[in-house]
């Protein structure tokens, strides 16, 4: 893979890497530093990247390893558990539910690190279990377990017991209406 192709790859994955970093650490400035470190490490380690393999997964692996290495160094530092950053995120007008994006991202910050990264990688970023397991350097079954526990924990933290506790989401609402025999227009 040419350096120009890698450069294009880095640029195209920047938004997702940054979102992953923010979701991991809950702080935009720290996330930007993480992404910057990831870019530099990736670029300086191009010879370790196997052409034909998954560049996106490789970059996410570097980012999460960088994050956890940093966490070990900064053990005393408390992440944004209060969700100061995510509290600044605006909520689109289509969401009127009792649980909104801010609640959800704050709740995400209260998961354990391994549950949070597994849930984000599979549930939000769309990696397959196998890819997430490779990124997190653990067994596929471990990832499945972490995702399931994270989802249950998230529901506990949010205090939701039924789908109705969330605001209407058009697609799902239409599916539910169809399933109940009511036409959605």
């Amino acid at each position, binding site marked *: 893979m040419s350096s120009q192709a890698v450069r294009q790859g880095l640029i195209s994955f920047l938004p997702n890497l940054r979102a992953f970093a923010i979701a991991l650490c809950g702080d935009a400035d720290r996330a*930007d530093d993480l992404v910057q470190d990831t870019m530099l490490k990736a670029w300086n380690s191009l010879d370790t990247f196997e052409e034909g393999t998954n560049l996106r997964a490789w970059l996410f692996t570097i980012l999460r390893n960088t994050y956890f290495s940093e966490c070990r160094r900064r053990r005393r530092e408390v992440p944004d558990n209060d969700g100061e950053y995510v509290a600044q995120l605006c909520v689109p007008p289509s969401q009127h539910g009792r649980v909104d994006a801010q609640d959800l991202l704050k709740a995400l910050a209260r998961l354990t690190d391994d549950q949070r990264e597994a849930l984000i990688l599979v549930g939000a970023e769309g990696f397959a279990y196998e890819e997430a397991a490779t990124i997190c350097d653990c067994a596929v079954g471990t990832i499945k377990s972490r995702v399931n526990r994270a*989802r249950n924990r998230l529901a506990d933290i949010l205090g939701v017991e039924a*789908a109705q506790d969330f605001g209407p989401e058009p697609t799902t609402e239409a599916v539910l209406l169809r399933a109940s025999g009511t036409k959605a227009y």
Partner: protein
Amino acid sequence: MQSGKPSVQLLGSSMTDVNEAFDVDLAPQATNDANIKPLGEPVPELAGHIIGQLRSAYDRLVDEPVPDHLLALVANLSDPEAKS
């Protein structure tokens, strides 16, 4: 199409992966009664809603503009060959 589920692709992962992860059928077919969960049963849609909300919140992060200094950093990375 496998198992009667739509082959929806979301960021490289199939909806089947998501369903398996959350033990839910996110898109039950109205014509298949077996996919319709009766009222009162533990709500499988809840998991679907949680992941839907998570994706929505996460997508908002992805949609945030990337700071210029990060874009500039990548644009100005010198070719590895040039380093040596």
